[in-house]
């Protein structure tokens, strides 16, 4: 059996853990640059605020209903996510972290346990230790577990656990799930299925396999097998190695001067370098892009990008920044209001299989030692505590985050204080 454990309204729940005054109030967390609502409390959902709704479209609603608004605080959410995951890991080692707020757990060794009770226990412990509410869906396959989780949220929110381990419980869940709510069915397939009279997940069990193969390819066949209880989606205990890494951000304000864009590009490149070293990978190419805001119809528009081939694959931030600056010199044009810049490191390979260059005169041993020291210091004192000169402090280009909550769990200065009388 497989369980899918998913945190409820995760970003909002994280904010509420450290600010209990937010409980019971409509709350939304915004995307980068305070653009759109990306997490909503149940109260906010009831007001009709939908996922990814731009803030400028709901300003009146926010004022009228006193909706609490927070900028996204990924440091806090990342740390809270790790805490939730570590509690679940203490029950079983075989887990697959699917995203920041959900994971699959393999319960195959728990044949003699009451899985619904186990799910409730996990739910209670996560809530007690972290304050984050979670829902648990248990079933034979990943697709059914995902469906069970959704069913638990919708139909038994108080219990928060649904175990689809009998024919009756599976059928009940399938009958209450519309085809467009099934994990893996996009809008096109949903449209096709509805047009052909298949409305709920239980209807899909009756579809002839030939029809599925013809109209929905092997993806549909796999999905059908999963719904029938045959596991077809493989288990990924460790995420597959990345093929490329991208760091890009919209600026908090429009930038025209080259020096500021250089700082942003250097910071993004340095972040890419750090991620590469974490993954023990090296990049063979670097891609840099800058762009204006296409939504400002009256502005002059410019998008430009360039990909540079590196002579030897590297994960040294110093070397990557040098090439990124070269790329920026190629693409930068003055006279535009730039809104976004980004760096992508491409063509990644493991760092132990690098092809050295015959004419390479970089001191790679020294570079490796410097990067290693830099990573160690930053790990202890925080991201970018030690940084490159070009990088600066990003005062002008930093993201807009006017409602940012403190990093309660990762920063000494931000640790909440309690007064005892």
């Amino acid at each position: 059996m497989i369980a899918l454990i998913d945190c409820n309204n995760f970003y909002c729940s994280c904010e509420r853990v450290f600010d209990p005054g937010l409980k019971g109030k409509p709350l939304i967390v915004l995307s980068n640059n305070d653009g759109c609502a990306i997490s909503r409390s149940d109260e906010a959902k009831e007001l009709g605020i939908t996922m990814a709704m731009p803030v400028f479209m709901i300003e009146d609603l926010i004022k009228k209903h006193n909706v609490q608004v927070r900028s996204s605080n990924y440091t806090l959410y990342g740390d809270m996510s790790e805490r939730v995951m570590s509690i679940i890991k203490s029950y079983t080692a075989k887990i697959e972290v699917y995203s920041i707020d959900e994971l699959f757990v393999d319960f195959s060794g728990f044949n003699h346990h009451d899985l619904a009770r186990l799910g409730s226990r996990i739910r209670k412990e996560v809530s007690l230790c972290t304050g984050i509410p979670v829902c648990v869906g248990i079933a034979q396959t990943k697709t059914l577990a995902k469906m069970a989780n959704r069913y638990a949220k919708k139909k038994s929110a108080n219990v928060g656990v649904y175990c689809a381990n009998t024919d009756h419980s599976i059928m009940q869940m399938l009958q209450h799930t519309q085809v467009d709510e099934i994990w893996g069915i996009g809008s096109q397939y949903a449209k096709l299925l509805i047009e052909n009279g298949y409305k709920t997940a239980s209807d899909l069990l009756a579809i002839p396999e030939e029809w599925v193969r013809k109209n929905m390819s092997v993806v549909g066949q796999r999905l059908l097998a999963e719904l029938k209880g045959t596991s077809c989606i493989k288990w990924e205990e460790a995420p597959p190695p990345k093929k490329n890494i991208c760091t890009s951000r919209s600026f908090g304000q429009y930038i025209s001067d080259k020096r500021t864009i250089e700082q942003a590009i250097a910071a993004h490149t340095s972040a890419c370098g750090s991620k590469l070293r974490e993954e023990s990978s090296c990049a063979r190419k670097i891609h840099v892009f800058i762009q204006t805001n296409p939504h400002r119809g009256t502005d002059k528009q410019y998008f430009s990008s360039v990909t540079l081939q590196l002579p030897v694959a590297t994960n040294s931030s110093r070397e990557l920044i040098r090439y990124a600056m070269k790329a920026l010199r190629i693409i930068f044009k003055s006279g535009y209001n730039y809104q976004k810049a980004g760096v992508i490191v491409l063509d990644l390979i493991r760092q132990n299989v690098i092809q050295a260059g015959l004419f390479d005169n970089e001191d790679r041993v020294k570079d490796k030692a410097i990067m290693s020291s830099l990573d160690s210091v930053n790990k202890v004192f925080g991201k970018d505590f030690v940084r490159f000169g070009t990088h600066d402090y990003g005062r002008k280009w930093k993201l807009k985050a006017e409602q940012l909550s403190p990093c309660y769990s990762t920063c000494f200065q931000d640790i909440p204080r309690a007064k005892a009388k």
Partner: protein
Amino acid sequence: MFNPFCILTPELLEAFIQNGKKYFVRQQYGYSGKADEGMERHFIFTHYPNIASAMDHFGTIENDLFRYVYDWNNEAHRKRLVIAAGKPEGFKIWAGVFQKNWERLITRELEEKIRKYIKSMGWQPSRNDIINPKYYLYYGHLYVELKFKKKIVRIKFEEIENIA
């Protein structure tokens, strides 16, 4: 002004609807050609399959006093769309679709301006290099994409037209 777009006709409107493009954003279109002297106003109607995309576009043209979103499902809007597609007198209504053989409208003068722009980018294509400009409509503006080796540039085409 370089204008490769089609006039909105009833047939074209019908084709949009048949293909599920039921939302149209109206905006002013800066055009003045000799053959069109006497024409009062030029508009371009851009078609979208959903209201969200149309509203995205609509939000980018807030300075346009004549901006409007038509929804084919709305009876009153439908009537106005049909009128717009019927070549109403005093108006020239363009659709967001390239006309047949539009490439022939690119004059030598424009080609020269494109060359000048490429030169200004510091690109140095050799005799054998081919740079094929790719034209597309984005939020009611004509854009051009230029690619050379690993470099890409996308700009409004009017910027190239304005090169002296």
